[in-house]
């Protein structure tokens, strides 16, 4: 026996309206996910199923069809909103609200709307079974958190980034030199900068800890001809050239 009620249509309509309100008024990701994700995956498709009058005989069947119909509604929405030049968060919320409301209205008006499928017989959980499932969820979530932290912590390559660019502020007559460390130990560096082969600046004993970024803007004479600036990074510890970069200084 199915469930003859049409109250689900009201719930769908209100859900869609609440989603529009949440998208318009809130930046809270939790609230918006709680309302928005079911709109994309289920609620709109459920209303469409009811509007078409497709009869489903089990909850699994209803859910599977509703997900499929929701996908169809979402995909159609993408094209419609693109045509209306309204592919924005509010555009999406309005689209799903419109689809859900229109489908719910059709389903509410028609007389032969099929009953909802009956819920499966309730299964009794014992305490230990519930505890075991909770523990399983805890272990799986913990394992995922472990995977995330392990991915962030482990780096196969240890390296130091070194760069030389025309000024990031866009000013002519300046160049930017930078160092960023992805090493495992703090390191000291010396930097030498030349302009067309002539010494321009020397920066000694720059201490960089792992994860740190060091940058410096260096003034250069602005000329009408093209000049090449070159920067060399030395490690005083072993007195060797570690990195070398260059840039073309913009003409005035």
């Amino acid at each position, binding site marked *: 026996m199915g469930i003859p009620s049409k109250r689900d249509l009201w719930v769908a309509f209100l859900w869609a309206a609440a989603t529009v309100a949440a998208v318009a008024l809130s930046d809270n990701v939790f609230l918006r996910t709680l309302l928005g994700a079911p709109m994309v995956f289920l609620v709109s498709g459920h209303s469409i199923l009811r509007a078409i009058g497709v009869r489903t005989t089990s909850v*699994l069947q209803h859910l599977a069809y509703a997900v499929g119909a929701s996908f169809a509604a979402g995909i159609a929405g993408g094209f419609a909103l693109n045509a209306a030049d309204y592919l924005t968060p509010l555009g999406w919320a309005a689209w799903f609200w419109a689809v859900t409301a229109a489908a719910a209205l059709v389903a509410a008006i028609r007389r032969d709307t099929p009953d909802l499928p009956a819920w499966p017989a309730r299964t009794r959980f014992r305490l230990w079974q519930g505890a075991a499932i909770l523990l399983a969820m805890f272990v799986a979530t913990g394992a995922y958190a472990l995977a995330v932290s392990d991915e962030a912590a482990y780096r196969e390559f240890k390296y130091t980034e*070194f760069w030389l660019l025309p000024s990031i502020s866009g000013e002519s007559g300046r160049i930017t030199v930078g160092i960023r460390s992805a090493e495992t130990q703090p390191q000291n560096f010396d930097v030498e900068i030349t302009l067309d082969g002539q010494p321009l600046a020397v920066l000694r004993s720059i201490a960089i800890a792992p994860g740190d970024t060091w940058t410096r803007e260096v003034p250069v004479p602005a000329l009408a001809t093209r000049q090449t600036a070159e920067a060399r990074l030395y490690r005083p510890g072993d007195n060797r050239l570690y990195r070398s970069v260059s840039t073309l200084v913009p003409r005035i």
Partner: protein
Amino acid sequence: MMLMMAAHFTAGTRISPLKAGIRFISAIIGPDLRGGSADAPPQRASCGWIAILGLTVATALLLVVAGHGAGRRGYEMAPLLFCSGVILLVVPTSLRIAWPTTARGERLCLLFLLSEALFYCKKVYSPTSFSGYDEYLHWIATQDLITARRLFLSNPLFPIGPTYPALEILTTAIVDLTGLSLVVAGTLLLVILKGTFIGALFLFLESITGSPRISAIACLVYMGCSTFFLFDSSFSYQSLGIVLCVLTFAVEAAPNNLVGLSRLKSLGLVGLLLASLAVTHHLSAAFAAIYFGALAGLEALRRHDPLRFEARIVVSFTAILAIALPFLWMQWRGIPLAAYLGPVIGAGLNALLAKILGAASPMSEHLGAPDKALYLRLTTLTALLLLALGLATGFFRSLAMAAPSGGRSDWRPIQEIFQRRWRDSRLVLLTLLAFGLPVSVAFRLTSAGWEIGNRMATFVFIGVGLVVAVSIVHFWQGRTPRGWRRIAPALAVAVIVLGGVASAAINPIHGRYRVAADQESIEPMGIETARWVREWLGAGNRFTSDRINRLLLAAYGRQDVRVRIKTGVDAARIFEAENLGADEFWALAGSDIDFLLVDLRLTTAPPVLGSNFQPWQRHQEKPLSGAALLKFNHIQGVARIYDNGWIMIYDVRGLHGNP
């Protein structure tokens, strides 16, 4: 089975060896369904088993995570951890699902648990981002859509992608409505897709076989498909396409929608799903068109059904929709599908024919296959042998299920099929579809046809799952099996699922960096360099580089990456030669490329997948030379603006007088 064979052998006093042999083979592969019924009396789901298996699966996932962690560090114990995790995940759950007396609800619950757990295993390879090459392509396309708020933007890395934007549309809808990040929204979508796929496949097979047990085992066997674990779980259009495809089949075949007005209403839903499929994925849409076309053909051939006229009309209309909608979409968008898929299919067919006929094989066939661990190969091979055994013992039984006299033990049901008398055309079609497995395997044995064989498997395994499940239920287990017949077939199914994991990738465990090996080449240094580019050079610069760094620059760096320097000049030409020839120099100088990114790790080993820049390149058996990649140091007008010891970025704007 032994009892049945004994009956055959004791039936007569003297039997010639030939006749005995024929009877023996007939008893094994013949259409005997042993009375027809497949399911034990209905039972209640056991929450105890679900709880215990949930805990087992969680422990298994912890081992898998540990395996990836060990793999990242290059520890030798990584395969041990990973494999023990996957075995612990698959074997107990598969045993319970395939157990003859398990309740329908419990089978379903465990199927969802297993499929989502396998997705979890895939996801923890790269838990905070996407990992596969195709995933990056769709990730970039979705970022473009979210940024520009417009569809059909061009994508040089994936020219056909923007014309099938359904996945990107749905992900954008989730991102916009929820405020979640793109990766989280995409992952949430994939979780739902995985569950929907298993639910829809179960419903589809249950509606045509009438047996939850056969359906559940068929779903389990489907997980042994080489694309289930990785390819169809990736953030890519086929993952949505196959779900829409199977959902369409399930709606069309549902018994509550097969008569009268219900049929027309369900046709409305089928139409919606087919229209969505047409704009989602070309191959899935093509498969749906082939399926419904063949179904209409079988309905036209079929005799002896009082409802056949109505059935014919509806199935024919569905077939017209399934064929016309993708075709119209292609015509409207001007999709060059033949140019996109034609060369791949042509090369695959040529390679396969050359192999069969013993002719001189094409150049592509001289490539060495990428190295794969022996235990992975052995698992795949064992799974394949078990599948072959299942197909051999299940093929005629599956056909017999479709025959009006399916319960008989002789060959009468097969005769009826030949006389075009069957109850359900879908069952006949899926059984015939299982023939695709040997074809798919044959393609996979060639380098050029590997891609075709792999993609075919996604669809062929729907039939394979059905036939193998019928074989297990009606031959290997029977209705109430005892002893080894309870456990051995269920274990065989578990091995088939393990084979699916083993055949999914060259190395499913996260390992150390390897050159040009798609997801195995993506690691933090490349990602950080791409982020540096975005931070210090801004978005939208025109970049070119090798295949992997191009992806990272587009995804993390939001750069405008180019596969070609200019028309007719591939990026590979300027990177591979030790000196920049005049043609290449003038091509670069005359192009609008702003920056080149050079990765010296390409000099450490030959490319694992054969090419550093594009798959259509000539296979490279040697690593690139350092001199080739560093030649830009000595070119007037080119500045090396970034250097991290491995990766260098060259500013080439000076070549076009525009520094």
